[in-house]
């Protein structure tokens, strides 16, 4: 949602929009009475809801990550939450890591609901995510692939954005459960990530979730 009072400029624009909307309502009332005024009110309210609640579009792509790494080194970032310790995911990561001698970094967003997010009560969710991540990193180490990992923001796109800035990957894997079981797919996370970030993104769907 766009906050109409986020900045002075936004608030000033809100004044202009309100002025125009209520002028239209007053004119409709003068010309057509209560019914006309009510119709205009409903129309402007609907327009305002669409405008302020729509997803921002045309967001510029993140074309260059500030983090740099030596030439020749290949970096892979893996974004996964419940699937982070999946066997299928680990197999795929091992394959890429061995083929391309890649440095691997896992990002496991904390899973919180809206109530906990707004209350900033994210510590238990982060602890759970850290536990899943630890299992995954231990399995990778056992397979001979040292990897790093972090618990990211509960917004997966923000978590990926953070990793772009701090890790500077050449490729990303977003791992989810199949459609119908994955909240990320329902929210269009993969689609939005491909729109927003200028790096190859592989979408891996796994069934086995420990």
């Amino acid at each position, binding site marked *: 949602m766009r906050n109409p009072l*986020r*900045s*002075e400029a936004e608030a000033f624009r*809100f004044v202009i929009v309100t002025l125009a909307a209520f002028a239209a309502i*007053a004119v409709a009332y003068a010309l057509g009475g209560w019914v006309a005024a009510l119709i205009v009110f409903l129309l402007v309210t609907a327009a305002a809801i669409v405008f302020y609640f729509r997803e921002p579009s045309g967001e510029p792509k993140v074309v260059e990550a500030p983090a740099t790494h030596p030439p020749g080194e290949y970096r892979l970032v893996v974004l996964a939450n419940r699937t982070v310790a999946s066997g299928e995911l680990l197999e795929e990561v091992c394959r890429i890591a061995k083929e391309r001698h890649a440095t691997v970094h896992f990002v496991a967003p904390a899973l919180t609901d809206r109530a906990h997010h707004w209350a900033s009560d994210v510590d238990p969710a982060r602890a759970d995510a850290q536990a899943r991540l*630890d299992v995954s990193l231990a399995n990778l180490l056992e397979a001979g692939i040292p990897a790093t990992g*972090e*618990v990211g923001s509960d917004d997966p796109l923000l*978590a990926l954005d953070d990793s772009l800035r701090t890790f500077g990957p050449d490729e990303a894997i977003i791992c989810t459960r199949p459609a119908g079981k994955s909240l990320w797919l329902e929210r269009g996370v993969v689609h939005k990530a491909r729109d927003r970030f200028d790096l190859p993104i592989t979408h891996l769907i796994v069934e086995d979730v420990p």
Partner: protein
Amino acid sequence: MEAHAAAHHHGPPIAHASSKVNREVLGMFLFIASEVMVFGAFFAMYFFIRVVNGVPWPTPPYHLPVYVAGINTLILVTSSFTMHWSLQSIKKGNRAGMKAGLVLTVFMGLTFLLTQLMEYSRIGFAPHNGAFGSVFYSLTGLHGAHVLVGLTILTCMTIRAFRGHFSPEHHDGVEIAGIYWHFVDVMWIIVYTTIYLL
């Protein structure tokens, strides 16, 4: 935080700033929510009295000074423009513009408030003269209280501006005062339309 380091970390995991709601944003949302509830309660009262109970508006023999209030509305809306000009000026390093914008905004806000008080003294009815009078004074009075708070904030910012505070990089005081002032303006546009025009 790297997983290796996490093994030696005691206590809950270190949270990224992005995991939590930005404090300023949360504060502003809570403020807006509380204001919407306060004004919403008064508008609900207005709705029930006028629409559900069918009380004539304005109740005869009283009249509302629509044109005087209209000019007052124009003054308040203009003050939003001067407020915006003030902030744009300091963002460009124009201190004189910022000061002039703030002084004009305070002047117009004061004019609005005094005109409203004069309107009260000459309007011919009091809050205890029926439901119509109660709603009229409640809504306009609640808004007037917000204008008074806004004027207090703006006066403080004006004094600070004349003392040399604020720069193109640091002008949060003017920005936040501006947000509040625009909010007060928005509420008046709604109050004026519903109470005086419809």
